[in-house]
């Protein structure tokens, strides 16, 4: 009797192993769009804890630029910007989740680099923020420029490009470089705040917001140098070409909308009365763009209606009236001397 019980147990284990194997084998998604529409919800991976991008508001809900990008795609695909499920992840796990198909898109601010793009099972969609790595120091150090920081200790977060960029910069300038690297951005900032390091470094737009969390924000100053290019782009899984097209053109629509003055407030009026042919094509009044993306005619309308155009998203989360107070600089439209340009809707 005892023996039979043991066999039953072993058979149970074997059966569950088999079950797990079958479950895992369903990762290969034939068509991401179909999957998302069937589920009725868009799964986005975000890395919380970056003010302005994905940070809990007073009620504990994550808000920010990254969240809006997720909502824009959900609005275009599902007709409702609220049909999102944001999964909080850290940097390495989000790559794994995307590769395994557990999430549909990563909207965290990951820098577009060669080694992350090629051969890693992920594809970038389009640059949504042009950032660069900046540096924060205590005023009392009396440092005016990065070139005076040889031998200083840096507090950094691992898994970002920040670490390697800084090491490269100091190596090329023949300066000694020391760093303490934390798995979490918040811990790195806290350690700097406690005085462990001379310098805190991350992408420039993150520095201003982080400074506000320090004991005495006025004690710290951001150095003028920016040592790297940080093109920030959402990511989708490699091989899902159609899904990538959708994400790419939803983001383009947000930028084109700003160019054409389409806002969250006037999008209805624009759809009914604008006689600009490109606006008509974007908003699905004329043309068959929606059908080619296998989306409903109102895809771009829904996205703009849901989150506003690119400039509106920027102003809401990163602009001068926010805590981040970021200057748009390179993120201006190409018509204003920036790099933001949507390919034509033609």
């Amino acid at each position: 009797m005892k023996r039979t019980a043991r066999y039953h147990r072993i058979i149970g284990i074997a059966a569950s192993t088999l079950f797990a194997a079958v479950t895992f084998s369903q990762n290969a998604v034939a068509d991401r769009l179909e999957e998302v529409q069937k589920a009725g919800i868009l799964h986005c991976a975000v890395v919380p804890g970056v003010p302005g991008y994905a940070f809990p508001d007073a009620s504990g809900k994550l808000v920010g630029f990254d969240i809006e990008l997720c909502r824009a795609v959900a609005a275009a695909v599902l007709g409702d910007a609220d049909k999102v499920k944001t999964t909080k992840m850290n940097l390495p796990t989000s790559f794994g989740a995307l590769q395994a198909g557990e999430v549909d898109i990563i909207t965290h601010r990951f820098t577009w680099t060669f080694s992350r793009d090629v051969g890693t099972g992920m594809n970038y969609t389009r640059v949504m923020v042009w950032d660069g790595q900046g540096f924060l120091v205590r005023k009392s150090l009396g440092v005016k420029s990065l070139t005076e920081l040889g031998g200083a200790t840096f507090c950094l977060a691992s898994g970002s490009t920040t670490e390697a960029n800084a090491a490269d910069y100091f190596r090329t300038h023949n300066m000694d470089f020391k760093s303490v690297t934390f798995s979490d951005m918040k811990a790195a900032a806290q350690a700097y705040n406690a005085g462990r390091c001379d310098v805190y470094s991350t992408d420039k737009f993150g520095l201003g917001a982080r400074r506000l969390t320090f004991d005495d924000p006025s004690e710290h100053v951001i150095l003028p140098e920016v040592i790297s290019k940080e093109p920030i782009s959402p990511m989708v899984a490699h091989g899902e070409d159609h899904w990538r097209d959708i994400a790419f053109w939803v983001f383009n629509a947000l930028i084109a909308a700003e160019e054409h003055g389409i806002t969250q407030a006037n999008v209805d009026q624009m759809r009914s009365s604008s006689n600009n042919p490109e606006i008509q094509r974007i908003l699905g009044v004329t043309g068959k763009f929606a059908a080619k993306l296998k989306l409903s005619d109102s895809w771009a309308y829904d996205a703009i209606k849901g989150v506003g155009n690119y400039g509106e998203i920027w102003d809401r989360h990163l602009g001068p009236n926010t805590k981040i107070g970021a200057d748009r600089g390179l993120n201006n439209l190409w018509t204003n001397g920036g790099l933001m340009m949507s390919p034509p809707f033609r």
Partner: protein
Amino acid sequence: MMSTLSRLWGHSTTRSLIYQSAIVLLVSAAVLTLIQTATNNLQRLGIRTGFEFLSDEAGFVINQALFPYGPTSSYGMAILVCLVNTLILSLLGILTSTTLGFFVAIARLSRNWLLRALASAYVELFRNVPLLLQLFFWYFATLRLLPGKRESLSLFDLIYLNIEGLFVPAPVFGQGAALIAGSILVSTVIAGVTLKFARQHRESTGKPFQHARYGYAAAVLLPIATLAALDFPISWDVPVFKRFNFEGGFALQPEFVAMLLAITLYNAAFIGEIIRAGIMSVHKGQREAARSIGLTAREVYTVVIIPQAMRLIVPPLTNQYLNLTKATALAAAIGYPDLFWAVGGSIQAQTGQILELQAITLSTYLAISLLIALLLNWYNRATRLRGRS
């Protein structure tokens, strides 16, 4: 026919054979499916596989490297440097937590009420708060307690303590360093042989060995003589304050100290209880018998109680050591560069070789754990009571 089948089924050997083959088949099918799926997915996603990336340039800095490492070193080298950091932390953690745990056990068994109460409070507090929280607490508490860089504490202008760590002079060996190392080795052997011979002499004759002191003197004098003969070829690299901090010498970082402190205090609480249980398992008749033949209180412990208690202590202690070693993987949270810090953090994010890196991490921790288990099992077998299994 039917009856033959049911007779076969009724035969327990046949039945177990059928069960076992069914299970083997099921499990192999499951494993094959998993491998097949993984291969398909890798191909579908166009993921680069293999371990060639280990020779690529790592590009990041490691703030505690015991052998030469720089940003131009390879990923493989970075993993090695960080593995050594894991091993140092585990080994020291095992030593310190065992020592502290032993005293905690003694205090818990003490007749002094205050000592007993303090030890109990310690155990309950530290084993019931999650290790990660303790880690953050010790790290940020340490940082807040240490003086700022410009207010460094100094000892004879040789040793300095500030928020970036403890800076001590490091010896720099000049010409003839190998000779000095050799002479130290030789004197250790001399001392060991003398000690052993003296003990044998005492045990066989009952008298102390008169000439032992010559042996010890030789052991002490030999390295000194060697140093003198070579004109003291050791210089000291003394830490000096540069623009931002002390440079030169050897630096003990606050991340390491906080890690060691946290895992020591956490694990000593468990180890204390394990040792206490072991000591209490020795029948009180043993203690009484030991006292009655005139052993001192210390001898009762060292000769009678502890050796018997060890048999009960070692198996759960092995588990605790394994837990401690695996828990060092939390180090990345406070910036101590251990194995998981490197593999789970920068290397994974820079290369995206998740499967390979997971394989490296898993197999390395497995190897360390198996090694610890092997050593302690070996010790356990060597010390078990003969005649019992």
